[in-house]
């Protein structure tokens, strides 16, 4: 595939992710932060997010698995996951976390378990999408092209530094 084609694919794919709500403006912020001095910034952050999320999801599973559920703790974990997912722009994950927190407040174990499942699902989805996206980017760069971020100005979102 030639570079131009790859780039177009990349643009389309990214737009669809935004459209479907997997990613939001925050992700664009990250993309815009990437520059020559830090060409792998997005990849690094995303990887960090994956690691962190998996850890949190495991913690959550364990916490909800207890005889007596410590909802405060659960809430703390969810809060953190919400924070990191929002920072990276993983919108659906963030929304799932918000719903999750509400149930934590109500101390509803059953509902919490369902929420956890939901969150995990969203996480897996966005993880796949991002990995695909990154792969595309790496291919473009490998082929000598550059990532056409400017094409993403659909949100009128441009960070001016």
């Amino acid at each position, binding site marked *: 595939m030639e570079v131009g084609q790859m780039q177009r694919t990349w643009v389309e794919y990214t737009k669809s992710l935004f459209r479907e709500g997997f990613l939001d403006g925050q992700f664009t912020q990250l993309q815009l932060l990437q520059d020559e001095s830090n060409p792998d910034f997005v990849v690094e952050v995303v990887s960090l997010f994956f690691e962190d999320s998996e850890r949190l999801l495991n913690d959550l599973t364990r916490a909800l698995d207890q005889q007596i559920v410590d909802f405060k703790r659960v809430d703390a974990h969810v809060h953190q996951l919400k924070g990191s997912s929002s*920072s990276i722009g993983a919108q659906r994950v963030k929304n799932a976390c918000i719903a999750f927190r509400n149930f934590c407040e109500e101390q509803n174990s059953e509902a919490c378990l369902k929420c956890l499942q939901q969150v995990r699902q969203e996480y897996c989805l966005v993880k796949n999408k991002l990995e695909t996206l990154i792969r595309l980017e790496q291919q473009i760069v490998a082929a000598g092209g550059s990532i056409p971020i400017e094409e993403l100005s659909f949100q009128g979102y441009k960070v001016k530094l």
Partner: protein
Amino acid sequence: MNLNNGKGSMSTASSSAAWKAGDVVPDQFPAGLRVLVVDDDPTCLMILEKMLRTCLYEVTKCNRAETALSLLRENKNGYDIVISDVHMPDMDGFKLLEHIGLEMDLPVIMMSADDGKNVVMKGVTHGACDYLIKPVRIEALKNIWQHVVRKKKNEWKDFEQSGSVEEGDRQQKQSEDADYSSSANEGNWRNSKKRKDEEEEAEERDDTSTLKKPRVVWSVELHQQFVAAVNQLGIDKAVPKKILELMNVPGLTRENVASHLQKYRLYLRRLSGVSQHQNNLTNSFISPQDATYGPLSSLNGLDLQTLAATGQLPAQSLATLQAAGLGRSAVKSRMPMPIVDQRNLFSFENPKLRFGEGQQQLSSSKPMNLLHGIPTTMEPKQLANLHHSAQSLGSMNMQVNAHGGQGGQGDSLLMQMNQSQARGQILNESTGSHVPTLTSSMGQPVLSNTVVGGVLARNCLAENGRGTRYNPVSHSSSMLNFPLNSTAELSGNSFPLGSGPGISGLTSKGTFQEEVNSEIKGSVGFMPSYDIFSDLNQHKSHDWELHNVGMTFNDSHQNNSLQSNLDVGTSVLSHQGFSSTQRTGQNRNISAVGKPMFTAGDTTDHVNAQNVGPINTFFTDNSVRVKSEFVPDASCETNLFPEQFGQEDLMSALLKQQQGGVAPAENEFDFDGYPLDNIPV
């Protein structure tokens, strides 16, 4: 923060104006701003770091609050601003905020994914200069430098007002004397706020040329020397030049002494004028420092007085105050000192009010004049001391006040204290260690915020039993007005400076509390003491332990924020303990105590030298760089002493009575040579 050192550009301007113009390096700033980012979430941390780097800031990141604190402590001038997450596993973000406020007095921005109103409100009350909702956008980060500038500007103002201007020695001298006698007093009293900005500058800052003045750190020892010198000379006659000679410290300039004296006076004033926490008092007082303290000062003064009166400013109270101070931002300067002015203690109030001023943050309502009501019995010095302690307490209280609502006065004091410096920390620390004189009742001076407040309160309360105390509560509040969160129930009389509770107590006590609460940034350890002073005065045996409390701050100030604040308080208290020696003698103590306070505090010039007349001695402590509050107080106090304060009449009356031993507040405040003794009580 050390304005001076950090970025070269920002540090210098002595006068606020100058600072603005000269300090900021227009071509480069805000690039190079040194930011410390704390967040336990690695993803966010990384993103923030990248964003900040993109803004051309120098970023240091850490994922634990403890790490952040130690980084900050190791290198106090190494950072300009801190950004911290609210929810962290090892320490609550607000707690960290308090610590930083008290110890280092750096602007802190809180952030969280939580955008609930309560949380944001908490941020505000704890003194965060901003609150960002995650996900943080880079645009939001681009403007954080404004907080740094704003803070420096405020500090400078206080600084200058406290007459720390280096350059105009001669002028200052004259102005000091002259001012004190007339204009100063009136001016100060009048528009605290305005004064602060204008008059103060005029009066105190004769030399405004304090550009780039390297900040003198008023250590406990230094402050004690200062207080001793002031006491020796007599609060009325204590002029920077003579103090300088007496102190015989190489490298110390007249300006340093002058500004410190100013703070000390404010502190004393605050101590005595705590009750007045209304702006009136503070106004006059505060003018030198931060007009804002006004209300607080009154509270503070009251507190101090109370404390002074009871002589009990327990170190704890101070501690509390400090703790309160911690809350620095939270503390509303208004000293909730409900203290009824009639309290003798409040005679100091006026000066105390000043104290509030010191606090910078203290809102004008600060009852700096805590001491106003200070009973004449209290020696000015003592008041001063109280003031100091009160201040420190105040700062502490301030925070507490916010919580306790009582420490109004204390708060103011605290606030003053807080404001003046890094708040508190020193107080806390010093209180703990130093408060030697703190009356036993005081309890441990350095209690942690809460403790302090409580202790102070307790102690003070005990003292307050006496009739003179206006309200036990007020006393304590005076002391604790510091916003010490811990509801320092300052036992009315005995300025519970030390403990946070005292602060709250103060508020309840009435007069200052309210104001103090808000204001006392917490570092004001003194504050409450001021009120107490009034009471104490009555008791004559004031244990101005508060003095010590306050003073102790300095010493320990290295320790930790809270502690330092408290310490200051305690030192202040301890000073207040001057009562032990007797009023006159007390002053000395106070000074000693005050000293720590000041140093503790950010040495902000603001140390409200409010030591309100009787608390003169306190002031000496005030010299303790009570960062947070003392300084202003001290300065205020100094003003107090001199006729400057409108309220001074009160204070001076008080002070005069006490005069005996009121040693010129040796606080580090670089008073302009205001006769500390004049703290009208």
